């Protein structure tokens, strides 16, 4: 019988999503409300009347900065076990409740945050609020569930990665972020995951799931007053206070001053994967808007320096781009190219392309570094960024994500208001801002990470 209910509500949610496609309109969106709940948790609410859905996005500052080498991976382990039991609800109870909400409640982890996401009908908001609050306050990490989650995480380590960008990026990251929490593997250490006990997870949860580490963003067709009242009630008597000590300042990486090369070979590949990584400011830095525009001009769009120079003009590679991921504290700009390892020369003999492509990549970045961008290019990059940001907001759950992310990670840029004011911030960036950012961050301190075809008989990876 319970399952029939579950089925019915998923139909309802399905229809809700469909209806929302037609009805959602910015014109019927209220300005966000920002409150600090009595327990200390920050809550941002944006009411959208022309949808039948509500999306809840929770950020908990329980990332890699809270880990050390001895428990590397515990944050993702906690996230994987978070919805498996509370003092008030057994695993099956939570499973049933999630099913009744439409099966769109989940957790995830990245090196900055643990996240809880929920998407359900607006009429079911109170149940979603209860579930999320219970998990934030009372997760229990039952032994059996920890065992199951461990097996799943370990299985994930074994599953093949079909994307070679990740290893080439990780290899760069280990050097660029040496001495900080980010030098460790992004998905945790397999040998550590094998040993962590349920009590370790509980201790990490108790230490990190405290009010000042948590931001909740809610977007949907629920009156803001009702959202606030619901969380005020459900999060009352939060069982853990903020620790008395201040949050320690993040230890920044030591900037490198000359090029460092990390080269690995794999016998199972046929293309060269070359990445040039530079240390960059984080998503909350004053320079962030200028860095976004700079990265777009460097390799973030098809008329960018790298795409036009390396792909369209020189024909060196199929996939060419630069990536500037939003991260707390420090980030990186990675210029990336995938190229064929050889090319037929004029005499018909194969020419080794790796050094040619590597040098061309560095040369293109150098030219970019030294050249003032044309105003037409700058304006195009801005329009492209603003349009892309709008496209990224198509889904209601993404709108909740950006609202919450801005609040917890971009405080110096205005917190959640940065999400609303993004276009203004981008439009204020000048040519001088871009050139200054390029000169400051695209210097000699580059980590060149390469994964190249090796002897196919020599194993998967060797130095």
């Amino acid at each position: 019988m319970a399952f029939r209910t579950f089925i019915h509500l998923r139909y309802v949610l399905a229809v809700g999503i469909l209806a929302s496609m037609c009805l959602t309109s910015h014109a019927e969106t209220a300005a966000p409300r920002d409150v600090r709940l009595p327990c200390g948790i920050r809550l941002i609410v944006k009411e959208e009347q022309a949808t039948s859905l509500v999306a809840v996005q929770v950020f908990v500052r329980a990332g890699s900065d809270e880990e050390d080498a001895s428990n590397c991976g515990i944050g993702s382990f906690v996230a994987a076990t978070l919805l498996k039991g509370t003092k008030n609800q057994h695993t099956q109870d939570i499973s049933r409740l999630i099913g009744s909400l439409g099966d769109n409640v989940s957790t995830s982890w990245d090196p900055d945050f643990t996240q809880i996401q929920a998407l359900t009908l607006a009429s079911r908001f109170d149940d979603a609020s209860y579930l999320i609050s219970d998990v934030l306050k009372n997760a229990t990490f039952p032994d059996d569930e920890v065992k199951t989650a461990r097996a799943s995480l370990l299985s994930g380590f074994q599953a093949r990665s079909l994307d070679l960008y990740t290893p080439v990026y990780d290899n760069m990251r280990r050097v660029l972020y040496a001495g900080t929490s980010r030098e460790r593997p992004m998905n945790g250490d397999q040998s550590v995951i094998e040993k962590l006990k349920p009590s370790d997870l509980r201790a990490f949860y108790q230490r990190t799931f405290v009010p000042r580490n948590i931001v909740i963003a809610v977007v949907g067709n629920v009156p803001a007053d009702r959202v606030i009242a619901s969380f005020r009630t459900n999060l009352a008597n939060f069982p853990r206070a903020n620790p008395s000590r201040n949050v320690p300042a993040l230890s920044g990486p030591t900037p490198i001053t000359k090029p460092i090369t990390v080269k690995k070979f794999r016998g199972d590949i046929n293309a060269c994967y070359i990445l040039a990584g530079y240390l960059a400011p984080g998503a909350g830095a004053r320079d962030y808007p200028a860095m976004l525009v700079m990265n777009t001009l460097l390799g973030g769009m098809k008329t960018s320096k790298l795409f036009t120079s390396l792909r369209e003009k020189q024909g060196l590679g199929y996939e060419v781009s630069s990536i500037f991921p939003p991260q707390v504290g420090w980030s990186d700009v990675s210029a990336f190219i995938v190229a064929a390892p050889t090319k037929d020369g004029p005499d018909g003999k194969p020419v080794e392309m790796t050094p040619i492509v590597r040098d061309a990549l560095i040369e293109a970045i150098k030219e970019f570094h030294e050249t003032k961008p044309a105003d037409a290019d700058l304006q195009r990059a801005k329009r492209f960024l603003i349009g892309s940001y709008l496209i990224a907001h198509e889904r209601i759950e993404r709108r909740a994500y950006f609202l919450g992310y801005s609040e917890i990670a971009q405080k110096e840029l205005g917190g959640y208001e940065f999400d609303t004011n993004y276009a203004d911030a981008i439009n204020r960036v000048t040519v001088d801002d871009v050139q200054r950012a390029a000169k400051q961050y695209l210097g000699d301190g580059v980590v060149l990470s390469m994964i190249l075809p090796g002897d196919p008989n020599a194993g998967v990876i060797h130095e």
Partner: protein
Amino acid sequence: MSGIIEGKIVYWDRINTRHMRQRPLTNRLRSLGIVIVALFVTGIAGGEIPAFAQSPAVLATLPNGLRIVTAPSHAVGLVAIDAWMRAGATRQPIGHFGVAHYLEHVLFKGTPTRPNEEQIDGAIENLGGSFNAATSFDWAHFYVVVPSENFAAALAVIGDVLQHASITDKSVQSERPIILSEVARGIDNPDEVMNAQIRAMVYGPKHPYGVPVTGVPQDVQTITRDQVAAFYKTFYAPNNMTLVVTGDIAPEQVQKEAQSVFGGWAKSMTLDPPDPPALPQLTSIHRTILRRSASSSSMMIAFGAPSVADKPDAWVMDVLLTLLGQGANNRLTRTLRDQQKIVDSISADYLTQQHEGILTVTASFPTGNPDAVEKAIVDQIQNLRDEVVSAWELDAAKQSLMASYLFDVQTDSGRADALGFYDMIDTYQYDVDYIAHFETVTGEDLRRAAVKYLTPDKYNIVTIIPFTDPSSAQAPSATAASKTASY
């Protein structure tokens, strides 16, 4: 069937040649568009549906044969423009493998009024969007998403590229190393290698589904400007195209602008491709084992599957696929990964196509025991043939299928993708009927389809075994095999 599948594995039959890497977002592209109307038909939670029924997809056809499908949504001030051409690999003349995909690259190289790719890409980026394209066996498509006020300007750029591309020898030559680099990247992906290999086995070397869409490196090396230009002249024509527009726009405005941009485009008179050759008939299990430097073993098994022409079977197959290896709590994952713990990952896949399809099961597993994995997969197939699934499991599969679709179709681009996809292989109306039809699928339908298509004693199988596995000693190397079979 569409997208829940393709969100997991990027096959060579769906290649985005204009790809630029971006920070991963939650975006599983694909799927249906007109579920709306379908849901209305089924009467589910009817109180919330009428709003949807007010904005169905609208078809108009220009005198030159160009089909225009518009689906307004007024969601977030965006519009998706997606131009679909019946110009995939199936249209290539025999021996010209890779030409359809090559053309897709060269189209962006310039037109008389926009003489280089920077002017084409720059025009769209100035409008706040990005120009992308993809080529498959049955189609190629070109798409942008821009703020809705920029619709007309963006459509003009797309129209210019599709009608007036300058196919020069210089542009064909300069694009060759880029396409070769793309092919090399594909060969680095074990799933793509297995997919290419299994298609070669199922369809044979003369069937367009039997060769990678990109062509093999030898094809790419020898394609000429004249071959590319001839393909363009023949198949890029209004009577071979569907323009899909979704988002914050009215059908009347779309039709008016489309008439302005495409109305003067002349029809093509030579569109019908020859029928592909018949598939080799299987009488037993056909195996290919590839040695490769890899950290774990992989396996892909292909069974028969219906074409889009056999709609009732195609709908049944989508539910069957979801239950077997796609949906939440699917049988293969639950049994082989969670209970037996003999695979690290496993899934099933089926792409609805114009001609006969295949249902594939793909697994990654630790070295040493491929026979056990194969037997466990075949056991699951046998169960589907022997027993009618429970109402509980059937319902769960349908829900999972619906949830995946709906997630994808939330966005304007996802909806445009679904409408165009089905209009290329059948008609966009396929979606209108889709949910209603799969809702009526019964457990006995699943069993009947399993008996018809999933034969436990007749299938093709490709296994990749690492060099480090002692059992690989007798197997050919992936590189060697690829030269004769796929590459």
